[in-house]
């Protein structure tokens, strides 16, 4: 066989050499099946290798100089903070129903320090589910007409002006506080913030103003901070129709602060500002904790997977670990910690690394299996929260205004004696002081270090250059498969035509048919477009459904399902009917449809990876195998071999898994057990998501469905 080929080769007129890059392309396309299998496996493997490849963090910006100055927070300040904690936890202060008393106490304490104090009243504004507002910047929000006096929150804001500074920049310290039902933890966080604040009124090194925001968290921490930020960044000067909070009698009580006649000009009921915000810290103390160590948790994910600059996390981590002796952790997916397959995978990696190290002592990429498991759990949660796009704390509100912010949650080992409380106040306070001092040292805003990264532990990260490799490997087969499918579809029809007609007859008519055939993909593009349109409609529907008043989550979900089926039928009958008959005539059309779908998915994933990597990665994990395996069910059934049967099963399973409700239930079931899953939950979940997140899933799922059933 090979000899005949050789002969034919030698007989043939030798073709001119094709350029190597073209040759490579042709080679890859012709071997698309093997290439795609290899690439996908490599992509998944690379994803699991990421914890191994993680680098140690380092402080990139030299000006930060964390911990170079010895902390100035002394026991004097700690006792000041303790005094505030005592006053706040005092039952007398809670007598008032609206919790105004404790706000007054806080304001009085701030005034005594010589800070400028103001109250900010806000009406809680729920984060509305609006799919069209995804790319628009945060605006000043809609004014709702029916505000009542009973529902408002009060943020207490204290500002220290830097004595030598020019007031162009400010650092924000946020402590959420619910005056109505405050736990001891919240009071303690206020105590820490107050002790730092009282120190900062005395220091001379301050170059940026300090804003201490006591956010009223009775309507949620995020809402309070977001309301304050909205007022800070995009204030409304005209208040025509809204009933002002000033009209409410309770609020007016607020301004009758006693004893501020001395430094009276420091208090004002108008909104006070400092300069451009350089960074923000949200401080929380957890109420109860069963761990044996004082730990501090860092939450960094903001909306849409945005992360603060890595330097900010580095500074906190460095100061907490090396100066204050606190244990730092970032969020993990706890369920992954105990999984045995991950452990064994980690052991495999470890042993591989051992072998490599014995071969060449400088290859030190291995990490212990336990560390690997932890790193993977952290990475998974990092990916999950970034993909979800819902901020993990009030710091998310700052990121919407390009301010780097993180939430620090201190969970102390629990005991009630005074020594312990002083210790927490001192260490927490010194940590905050150190971070503020570092940020204060900054001449420029955070820009040196990474913005695109995934954390695998507080001191290890995977940078964008590394994790993109896994993603690129995963989506690399898509264009190849698309090209090969297209070529196949074209050539197969060409062959069938060539058989029927004699070679001599192929003249200019063939040219014409080639021209027609080369435009045939437009048909399938039309089909794909219609399905995408339907996906978009389905994803927009929840917004309109949410406008329906008095709807329980379950019923609205049902309405959603019904409406989407209805819209599918309508679209099918109106737009896709000519296409359906065309499909009936051409059985082989599916290959073209698949190729168009795959290329559109490739473009979509590529774009998404720029916007939000984590979403793109998870999406690719689900969609790439689905796209590659998709095959009409009829064909599979007709073929009847074992291979096609397997493929069919895979298709069906994947198609169901990737359908968002199914995926949600599976995840929820894995995490919580299947018992408490509810259809309404899914509605809530969707409501908390941005619209496009589900849209991407929907359209591809439906494309597969059409294949399967058509």
């Amino acid at each position, binding site marked *: 066989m090979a000899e005949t080929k*050789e002969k034919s*080769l030698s007989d043939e007129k030798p073709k001119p*050499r094709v350029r190597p890059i073209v040759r490579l392309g042709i080679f890859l396309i012709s071997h698309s099946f093997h290439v795609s299998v290899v690439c996908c496996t490599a992509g998944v493997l690379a994803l699991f290798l990421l914890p191994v490849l993680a680098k140690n963090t380092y402080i990139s910006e030299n000006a930060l100089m964390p911990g170079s100055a010895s902390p100035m927070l002394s026991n004097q300040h700690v006792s000041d903070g303790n005094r505030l904690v005592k006053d706040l936890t005092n039952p007398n202060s809670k007598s008032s129903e609206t919790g105004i008393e404790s706000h007054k106490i806080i304001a009085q304490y701030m005034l005594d320090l*010589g800070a400028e104090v103001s109250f900010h009243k806000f009406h809680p504004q729920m984060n509305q589910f609006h799919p069209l507002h995804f790319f628009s910047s945060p605006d000043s929000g809609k004014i709702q007409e029916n505000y009542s006096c009973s529902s408002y929150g009060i943020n207490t804001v204290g500002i220290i002006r830097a004595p030598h500074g020019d007031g162009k920049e400010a650092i924000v310290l946020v402590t959420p506080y619910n005056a109505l039902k405050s736990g001891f933890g919240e009071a303690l966080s206020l105590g820490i913030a107050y002790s730092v604040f009282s120190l900062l009124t005395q220091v001379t090194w301050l170059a940026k103003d300090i804003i201490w925001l006591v956010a009223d968290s009775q309507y949620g921490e995020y809402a309070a901070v977001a309301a304050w930020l909205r007022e800070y960044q995009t204030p409304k000067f005209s208040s025509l129709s809204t009933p002002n909070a000033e009209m409410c009698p309770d609020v007016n009580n607020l301004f009758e602060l006693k004893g501020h006649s001395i430094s009276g000009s420091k208090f004002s009921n108008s909104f006070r500002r400092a300069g451009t915000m350089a960074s923000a810290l949200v401080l929380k103390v957890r109420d109860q904790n069963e761990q044996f160590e004082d730990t501090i948790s860092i939450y960094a994910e903001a909306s849409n997977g945005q992360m603060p600059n890595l330097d900010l996390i580095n500074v906190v981590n460095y100061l907490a670990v090396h100066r204050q002796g606190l244990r730092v952790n970032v969020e993990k997916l706890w369920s992954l910690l105990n999984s045995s397959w991950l452990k064994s995978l980690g052991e495999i990696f470890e042993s591989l690394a051992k072998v490599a190290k014995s071969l060449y002592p400088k290859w030190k990429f291995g990490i212990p299996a336990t560390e690997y498991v932890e790193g993977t759990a952290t990475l998974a949660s990092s990916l999950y929260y970034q993909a979800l796009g819902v901020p993990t704390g009030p710091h998310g509100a700052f990121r919407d205004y390009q301010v780097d912010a993180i939430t620090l949650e201190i969970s102390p080992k629990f005991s009630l004696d005074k020594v312990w409380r002083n210790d927490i106040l001192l260490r927490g306070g010194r940590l905050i002081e150190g971070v503020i001092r570092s940020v204060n040292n900054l001449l420029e805003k955070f820009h040196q270090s990474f913005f695109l990264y995934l954390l695998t532990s507080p001191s290890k990260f995977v940078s964008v250059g590394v994790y993109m490799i896994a993603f690129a490997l995963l989506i690399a087969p898509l264009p190849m498969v698309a090209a090969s499918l297209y070529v196949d579809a074209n050539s197969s029809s060409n062959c069938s035509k060539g058989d029927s007609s004699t070679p001599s007859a192929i003249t200019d008519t063939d040219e014409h048919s080639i021209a027609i055939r080369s435009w045939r993909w437009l048909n399938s593009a039309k089909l794909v477009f219609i399905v995408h349109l339907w996906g978009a409609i389905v994803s927009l529907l929840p917004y309109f459904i949410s406008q329906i008043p008095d709807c329980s989550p379950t019923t609205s979900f049902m309405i959603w399902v019904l409406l989407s089926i209805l819209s599918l039928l309508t679209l099918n009958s109106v737009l896709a009917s000519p296409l359906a008959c065309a499909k009936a005539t051409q059985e082989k059309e599916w290959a073209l449809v698949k190729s168009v779908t795959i290329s559109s998915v490739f473009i979509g994933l590529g774009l998404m990876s720029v916007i939000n990597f984590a979403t793109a990665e998870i999406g690719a994990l689900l969609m790439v195998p689905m796209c590659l395996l998709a095959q009409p069910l009829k064909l599979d059934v007709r073929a009847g071999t074992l291979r096609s049967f397997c493929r069919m099963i895979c298709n069906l399973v994947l198609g169901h898994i990737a359908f968002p409700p199914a995926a949600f239930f599976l995840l929820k079931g894995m995490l919580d057990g299947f018992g408490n899953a509810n259809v309404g939950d899914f509605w809530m979940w969707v409501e908390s998501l941005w619209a496009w997140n589900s849209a991407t899933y929907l359209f591809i799922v439906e494309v597969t469905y059409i294949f399967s059933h058509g």
Partner: protein
Amino acid sequence: MVLLQRPHILLLLIGTHQFLQCWIAFGSVNEEGQKQAEFSEELLLKPLPDHKLLAHFHFQSSGPPSTSNGCHHHLFPKAISQLVQKFRIKEMELSFTKGRWNYESWGGFDPLSSSNAKPPGVELWAVFDVPQHHIDASWKNLTHTLSGLFCASINFLESTATYSTPEWSFPPASGNVRYGTLPCEAVCTENLTPWLKLLPCRDKAGIALLLDRPSLYRGFYHSQQLHLTSTGSSSEGIDSGIILEQTLTVVLQPNSEMAIEVHASEKHIQPSWSLSSIFGKQVSGRCVLAKPSSVYLLLDRGLSAANGLTSENFWSNPSFELSANPDRIFLEESSSHSKSLSILYMFQVEKYCESEPFDIGLMWKVPVAWLCQQTPLHASRFLMGSGNERAAIAISLKSTQFTEGFMSANSKDGSCELRVDVFQVVPWYVKVYFHSLRVFVDQQPRAVSDIIEKIHVSPSKDKMSPGVMEVVLKLPCRVNTAALTIEFDKGFLRIDEYLPDANQGFDIPSAIISFPNFHASMVFLEDDSLNKSPLLSKFQEKCPVMSYTEVLLVPLTTPDFSMPYNVITITCTVFALYFGSVLNVLQRSVAEEERFLKAKAAKKTGRLPLLLSKLSAKLRGRRLEPLHSPPSSSSFINSKLVLKVILVAGLAVGWQYFFS
């Protein structure tokens, strides 16, 4: 030799003595005829409501007209007079400021704050007495000269994109004004030392002895100014020479450790201070060249009212105690709109000497609280919006209840209006849309034409000139809040136009808010000795109340500054690929190649390639197409090579593994 020298020295001594006597006599003679070079040093201390102390140094030297004694000066600094002569400066003011003036607690209505509260950084304005088309050239030269003179980067004001020409809103209103600011200029001792060099006694004697650098720069506000007025122009008849006013305003925190120690009821007592405790130094006599050399202690209206001081009982004040007896006490001339009066205690430094240095202290006995007189409207400015594309500047004016008395006094003639002038300069990369100007009065949007009486706008030109906006607002007197917003686009800069710390952001200089209806002046009861004090006569001048807003920091999009490197590498790669393929095409001869290929195909009979091709053909099954033959044939050679490499590497790995 020694004997011989002595008479010479004696003679020299006698000669100088005589010369000195002559000079003094000459001076006294000259005083009757023409103005003589004069120098005065004054220090004004003023307690501030928030436990701080304001110290205002005022040095004034006046140079005689240049025609009278050529280019020689006895007292007046030569550098300044040369500057004035060369650039024909009519009036000039240069200020170096660090820190912010706190208008809310330090006041803004009195002449002291109105003329000494300056924006952070450097501010320079000058009025020239040259034809219009020469002004810009003079300004450029002036900035360079001042930059050398004061060790500051004032020369950055040279480019036309940094300075502006206010038309009418700027107080010394005339067409020849140039105005420029450098908000991010850092001010330190290096700027103070040349400033001190202009004083005849430097800081070696007199009041300037108090200028102890560490304590000065520890303060909360530090503003060092140089104000030049000259009428020395040949075109006009009157020639009164040059007046150079050097002022230094500092706000300091007296050491209040004692106050903290005392128990809570006395926590609000003002800290006691003395000159030596603030500055760490005492005044040991006056600078011999200074004519009036005096120290004042000013208790402003609010404070004297809080003390219960009136024109009757100000001699016996119960609330505080002075460590030195004042030489004179001045009372402010009572005006219609306020009952309380400022009180000025004067101390003459002449009486003190080295052995008995001058030191004044103030001991508070009871806690006193008062408020300084504030500007009619408190102005603050901030940025609105987020993102890298657009934003808005907002100037919000808030009524300070304090001046309602004035307003009602002014509103006697029916329609009461409050005039506010706003002068705002924006750099060119902040592209302001002037049509987006919006005015809100008392939280109601108002038509621009209703509120704005007069507006002058000169739009910015890219890299050429900044945008200038001058607005006259007519607000109703009872206004509570007013706000002006104007939107802008954030411009893109070329990579070499970014400042060194580009990621910090870019500054928008302070806006000037002035109230032309209100005049800050403090007229003290007429006294002939008063006319001699330049400081007090300056207080009596009627100057409009002015306040500066905050400096704003606009974050602009900054490129990754390693970008040029990336661009260079990418461009080089693209060029290399391009030229490589072009050369390839140019050199290729098709016929030659075909013959070569044929020869090669005929020659190819190796055993291993044959085997491998068999193998691969089996592996790939029937899907063998003629199109793929060239790549497959090349891949055979590759795979052979690869196989060899893998074999060798595997051997090496195995060897390493088993023998280590």
